């Protein structure tokens, strides 16, 4: 019965953040995503290069919206994306004939690898998955996927996070680098 009683929760829900926190989160995310989206749609639109992937939206939640979270620190942001990207590409290359397997293997292994390397970053799971279920354009990138869009995008968003989060008086970013 303990199994079911654990599902009841019973803990308290944390309080909501203040108004200024909401504004700063919005501003950071707007600028961070602007940077990679502008590169993607305006500067490199005629090339085969991709600068934005869906998992950046999730990273934005963490690095602009939950600045103090261990999951949002540079080590996790960069490390989590890159490690997961490598795993995603390998999973696709090895098992692209069985996409269901490549998908689950990519995400599960990415989580395990991020845990093992202390780089857990939830959007990493999406980065690994996108390497498998993404467009032809993504698949054509092969291991370049790890550098562009993933590595480059993560670094650009990190730079914006360093600027915006430290302009805010009540914020400090990062908590730690490594």
């Amino acid at each position: 019965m303990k199994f079911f009683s654990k599902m009841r929760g019973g803990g308290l829900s944390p309080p909501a953040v203040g108004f200024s926190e909401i504004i700063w989160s919005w501003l950071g995310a707007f600028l961070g995503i602007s940077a990679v989206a502008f590169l993607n749609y305006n500067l490199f639109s005629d090339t085969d290069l991709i600068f934005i992937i869906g998992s950046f939206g999730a990273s934005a939640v963490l690095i602009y919206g939950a600045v103090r979270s261990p999951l949002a620190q540079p080590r996790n942001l960069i490390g989590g994306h890159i490690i997961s990207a490598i795993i995603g590409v390998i999973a696709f290359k090895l098992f692209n004939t069985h996409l269901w397997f490549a998908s689950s293997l990519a995400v599960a292994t990415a989580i395990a690898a991020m845990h093992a390397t202390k780089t857990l970053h939830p959007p990493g799971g999406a980065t690994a998955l996108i390497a498998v279920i993404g467009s032809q354009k993504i698949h054509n990138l092969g291991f370049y996927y790890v550098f562009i869009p993933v590595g480059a995008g993560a670094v650009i968003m990190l730079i914006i996070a360093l600027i915006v989060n430290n302009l805010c008086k009540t914020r400090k970013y990062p908590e730690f680098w490594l």
Partner: protein
Amino acid sequence: MKISELNRHSVGVTNEDIIQAMKKISGYLDITPSDFMEVYQVAYTHAFERLTSSIKAQDIMTKKVIAIDEDTSPIDTVKLMARHNISGLPVLNKKNKVSGIISEKDFLKQMNTLKQPSFMNVILQCLESKGCIALDLKKLSARDIMSSPPITIEMNTPVLEVANLFESHNINRVPVLDKHLNLAGIIARSDLVQAFC
């Protein structure tokens, strides 16, 4: 209950305190109140143990110990205890080693025939008989009254252990012995209170 356990249960921070603190700290904290509570309790216990194990018996003991030898008469013993306003003292044998401890409790034990030595039982016995039952003690010496063998500790025994010893043996003072097992000091419950506060 051991002191360390006692503290774990009475850390005293409520969920409400944590919620208020989380509201006060600007920025989104990626934890639930129960995360904090768990971290806090473990950290508190850790800090408590670190502090209490860093304080040793020798840091809080009273070095000037009032002691008697085994042949001391009850009158002299009682006089000494009354004069110094203490409720117990160590008894030394001829080789100057602690051979026992005499406390109020030991006197009560001698004075009443009932199993439960208590002040009220002694008064009861006094009221029921006509004389003072303490008179029977006159022919005894410290050797006959003391509790022996004594519970003792070493100079570097952590204070936390001393506290638990008091609790488990239900005693109020304990002699501290040096390397050569000679009396170096004594710790009473009141010394502990000061160490913890």
